[in-house]
């Protein structure tokens, strides 16, 4: 059932919010012991459900009223602990809301809980969480992807109607692909970052994971918009993200940049994405061969920029104002250095060191500045591709979900696996990942549609067209 249909059923009193919420809470109770997709399950959902029902009964419901959702645990929720899956923020309870939380509260959505993730959103496996790894609902031995692995797993396993995640280099799209659901990363500046605990400020964007492209657009309609609290939001974000649903694919020009189909991408994935391309062609779309010559530089540029910003953004975690505080340290320096040693996990530490390396004197020009040059180049190359086409089709990840423990200890291998997603963040563009097939082990394969800036409506409609003719396999959990 789509969220649009659910809305109708709630408004016509066919379904009560209380019943719906109870159903989801029971599923969480039952399934999340295995999946570990939630860090915190809210204990006041019944109260929230009643409040939402009240609004519906008065005939004042809004799009999200009474819809049970999950929120990634790096998005601040007033009075509900927000951990970033880190020991550092294990007991941090914000006294303020993120703008998206505020918007959902205003519409009286029912927040079921806060989802698990890679620590501080740094990772692509949801294995670096202080609260333990998240399991893939299609195969619990496998990772759900990351960093919004909990969000994707919670949707795939039916533990919530939709989920908010965040995407810095693929953290919404890749777990959506691994978990066989749909993930939308909006254009940078579409959704306010106020209250999203920053990883890399110039790349971070809150996104939606849901059961369909239509549902992601449905939720985006409620959370987008220029925000006086985040001056990197744009007035160009205009909403109406479902307005192009049902639009004819005929004549749509789809760019296929050849560099995204290199040897780094598995044959299963390539074949599946190419058959999706053929599907579009059969609907009357035009496939346009295109190229992004700078793709081989993208991962390095992405890691330098994101780590530099992260090193600075995470400097505030020192144990003094909030969060974990070491019991050791007689001087300020000793105290905070011990706090950060004990509070951060290995991957976070690596990124901080890398970021400070890229920024430190003597290395800044060679690393940070060159990365910034590549960033500009990639943006320009996207602009060139978009001169000849309307959307771009790429794989979402080079492989399907892999076994946990497979590459967590090989950072370089992990980083390289981001090749398909990072350029979208580097260029600030919108992209949606949806399932386009399954590998021989029945693990989902994701494809991504990238749009022009603020043209979410088009990629949502194109993904929706595909989904309507695609037979989806259910998760085993």
């Amino acid at each position: 059932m789509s969220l649009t249909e659910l809305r109708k059923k709630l408004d016509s009193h066919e379904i009560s919010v209380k019943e719906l919420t109870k159903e989801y809470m029971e599923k969480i109770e039952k399934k999340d012991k295995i999946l570990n997709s939630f860090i915190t399950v809210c204990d006041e959902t019944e109260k929230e459900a009643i409040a939402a029902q009240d609004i519906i009964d008065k005939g004042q419901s809004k799009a999200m009223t009474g819809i049970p959702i999950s929120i990634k645990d790096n998005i601040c929720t007033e009075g509900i602990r927000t951990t970033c899956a880190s020991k550092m923020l294990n007991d941090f309870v914000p006294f303020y809301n993120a703008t998206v939380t505020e918007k959902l509260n205003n519409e009286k959505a029912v927040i079921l809980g806060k989802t698990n993730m890679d620590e501080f959103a740094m990772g692509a496996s949801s294995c670096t969480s202080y609260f333990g790894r998240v399991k893939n609902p299609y195969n619990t031995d496998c990772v759900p992807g990351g960093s919004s692995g909990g969000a994707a797993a919670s949707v795939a396993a039916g533990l919530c109607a939709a989920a908010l995640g965040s995407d810095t280099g693929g953290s919404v799209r890749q777990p959506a692909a691994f978990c066989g659901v749909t993930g939308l990363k909006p254009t940078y500046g579409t959704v306010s970052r106020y209250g999203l605990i920053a990883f890399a400020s110039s790349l971070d964007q809150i996104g939606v994971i849901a059961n369909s492209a239509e549902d992601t657009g449905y939720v985006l309609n409620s959370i987008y918009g220029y925000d006086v609290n985040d001056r990197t939001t744009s007035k160009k974000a205009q909403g109406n993200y479902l307005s192009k649903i049902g639009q004819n694919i005929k004549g749509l020009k789809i760019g296929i940049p050849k560099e995204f189909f290199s040897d780094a991408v598995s044959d299963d994935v390539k074949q599946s994405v190419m058959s999706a391309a053929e599907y579009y062609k059969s609907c009357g779309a035009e496939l346009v061969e295109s190229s992004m010559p700078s793709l081989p530089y993208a991962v390095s540029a992405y890691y330098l920029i994101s780590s530099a910003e992260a090193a600075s953004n995470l400097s505030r975690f020192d144990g003094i104002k909030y969060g974990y505080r070491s019991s050791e340290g007689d001087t300020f320096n000793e105290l905070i250095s011990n706090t950060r040693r004990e509070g951060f996990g290995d991957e976070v530490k690596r990124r901080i060191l890398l970021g400070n390396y890229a920024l430190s004197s003597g290395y800044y020009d060679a690393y940070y500045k060159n990365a910034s040059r590549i960033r500009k180049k990639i943006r320009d190359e996207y602009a060139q591709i978009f001169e000849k086409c309307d959307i771009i089709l790429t794989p979402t990840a080079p492989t399907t979900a892999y076994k946990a423990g497979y590459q967590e200890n090989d950072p370089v291998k992990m980083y390289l696996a981001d090749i398909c997603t990072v350029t979208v963040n580097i260029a600030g563009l919108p992209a949606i990942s949806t399932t386009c097939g399954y590998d021989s082990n029945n693990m989902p394969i994701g494809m991504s549609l990238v749009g022009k800036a603020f043209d979410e409506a088009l990629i949502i409609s194109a993904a929706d067209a595909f989904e309507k003719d695609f037979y989806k396999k259910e998760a085993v959990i």
Partner: protein
Amino acid sequence: MIDKKLTQHLADLSKINFTDEELEKITVQMGDIINLMDKVKEIDSNNPTYTIDAVNYSDLRADEVAESSPNEDILKNSKETKENSFVVPKVV
């Protein structure tokens, strides 16, 4: 090339303590990571760098005062406070 001395310097800048053993391990990892990062050095430095679009002066926040947060909210997540303040070991 990255060596233990450089990693130690980065750890100092980052304010993260490492044991000697950890430092050796992370030095090796950082070596591999930085090898990957070295790819960016191939770009021609005549290429322009990326800059964020500017906002207009007229669109900046109006100079109006809003209420600050209650002191207890500001301090409530801190492990050590005194006299409405955050506490650190004495500096200077």
